[in-house]
């Protein structure tokens, strides 16, 4: 069911919610669109851009977090999550919400973060979600979807938390109407955007073919890997900006009498990531370390978790100082 309300009603409701939630939404800032803490000016929220600079994972898996204490978690609302970031939560949930070894820090953030997904009505040069069967509008892993349509906002729930949120808005008398479907214009835009992304990336192999290409490249395409690794400076920007990269390092910060550990994002692209006490390092050679990220994303994680670890957001291409185009690497391996 889709709940329609006037944008002015939604904006005033958001302002009232900021007392209960830390609300993050995409705003224009110095030429970039990225999540910022919402205080006022709800009319300046950019709902339907392509992906934000920061991936959604940073709200659930912060760059740095103490993991020996469990302070109270604040209620957070993230507005404007894109389907590429939402799809990445498939892998995150499988890894961090493992029944046997549950990461309580991730679980509590996940449960206390209301995620509102929004459509992409524009496309970045590097967007290629459709290659991996992800549509440019939210279909899963969010509590609500939101579409801005002229002077109205259309909300729909995807989870129980989303339903509760909608019932609260309904209770406040702000809902204008309910309907079984979205306006035709929105459905048309969704199709057009999907087609644009597909057309721009028509030469790229799909997920299954990419898996085969990368798997077969091990030991057979060293020249390709060495060529592209030659401009990689192991900065790890591709990893930090990736919505699916989940690696971290536990740092001991204990003081006398207090055992304390901090979880810090880490990157397989940093030298020494897999180095053992004996000095042996499976990723010592730069091109193998560079290749590892591709093998992880397209071969190993799908094999273990049945989830592709690339959602086609293209951030790794945008952020690379070595000007390495991940898709160009895949195409070079496929030749």
């Amino acid at each position, binding site marked *: 069911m889709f709940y329609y309300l006037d944008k002015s009603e939604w904006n005033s409701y958001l302002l009232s919610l900021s007392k209960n939630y830390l609300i993050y939404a995409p705003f224009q800032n110095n030429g970039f669109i990225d999540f910022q803490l919402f205080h006022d000016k709800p009319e300046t929220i950019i709902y339907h851009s392509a992906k934000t600079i920061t991936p959604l994972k940073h709200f659930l898996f912060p760059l740095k977090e103490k*993991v*020996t204490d*469990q302070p109270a978690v604040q209620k957070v609302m993230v507005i404007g999550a894109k389907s590429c970031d939402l799809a990445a939560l498939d892998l995150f949930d499988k*890894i*961090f919400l*493992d029944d046997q*070894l*549950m*990461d*309580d*820090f991730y*679980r509590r953030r996940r449960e206390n973060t209301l995620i509102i997904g929004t459509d992409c009505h524009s496309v970045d040069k590097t967007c290629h979600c459709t290659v991996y069967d992800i549509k440019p509008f939210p279909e899963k892993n969010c509590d609500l979807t939101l579409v801005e349509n002229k002077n109205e906002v259309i909300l729909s729930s995807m989870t129980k938390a989303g339903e509760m949120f909608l019932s609260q808005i309904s209770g406040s008398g702000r809902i204008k109407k309910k309907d079984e479907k979205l306006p035709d214009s929105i459905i048309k835009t969704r199709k057009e955007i999907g087609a644009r992304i597909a057309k721009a990336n028509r030469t790229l192999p799909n997920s299954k073919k990419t898996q085969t290409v990368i798997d077969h490249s*091990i*030991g057979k395409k060293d020249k390709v890997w060495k060529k592209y690794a030659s401009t990689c400076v192991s900065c790890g920007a591709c990893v930090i900006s990736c919505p699916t990269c*989940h*690696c*971290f*390092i*536990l*740092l*001991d*910060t*204990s*003081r*006398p009498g207090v*055992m304390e*550990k901090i*979880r810090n994002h*880490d990157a*397989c692209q940093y030298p020494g*990531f*897999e*180095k*053992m*006490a*004996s*000095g*042996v390092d*499976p990723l010592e050679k730069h091109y193998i370390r560079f290749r590892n990220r591709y093998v*992880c994303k397209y*071969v*190993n*994680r799908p*094999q*273990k978790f049945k989830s592709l670890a690339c959602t086609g957001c293209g951030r790794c291409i945008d952020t690379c100082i070595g000007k390495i185009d991940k898709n160009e690497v895949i195409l070079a391996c496929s030749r």
Partner: protein
Amino acid sequence: MKNIYKPLKSKIENIVHESPGIKSFVLKPDEEFRFDTGQFIELTLPGFGEAAFTPSSSPFEKKRFEVTIMKAGYVTSLFHDIKKGIPVGVRGPYGAGYPVKQFEGKDVLILGGGVGLAPLRSLLLTLVAQKQNYKRIILCYGAKTPSDIIYKDQFKDWEKKGVQILRSVDKPDTSWQETVGVVTVLLDKIKVDTSKAVVAVCGPPVMMKFGTFKLLEIGFKPQSIYLSMERNMSCGVGKCGHCAFGPYFVCKDGPVFTYDQIKDFPDVWL
């Protein structure tokens, strides 16, 4: 809910010098601590870091356990400098250990090299405690020199308990009466029906590699060869990615794998 990252406070009760560069530490956690043989722990030296070790003692002892540490990296070197009584942290136990139930009714061969005997000692003590469940227990152990042999005073006791023991060193001294050569030469000296036997292997990568090849050559099936794999196990709970090994995380899916599970990976032997 249990915090998987929070260490359990423990105390180092005793330190045993096993060989130059290898010491065993007797740990007493603040609470009862259970593990299955072959599982590992993350041992924290507060303020410095933590490292993964497989307990080398019997899992039937619940109040204290031992780890045997070779001075190799940053954390292990610090452990070699500490004195008993120091508080440390223990996380775990983690990972999949030896499936000893599946060993029942069979000959169990244990092939160890150097400090690799540490996790195998825990297995050996587990098997010896329920010896009636296994046909034979055979230990083949190799070290560089006689002084590099660990648990020196314990072999006689294991022998008395019915373990067949064969030992070798690469470089003997004048008192050495046993085999000279790499540990795999001991495999020529044993008679075992490989169709009714399993083997657990742990040691330096080169020993694991050639040990496995030799075991295959004498007829062991890949699914009967249990390898204790070494990788950079950091979080211990299959999340941080440091010990990725093909599609597996060694800390969660291992550290014990059958050769059959991993034989097709490009970087099995480093």
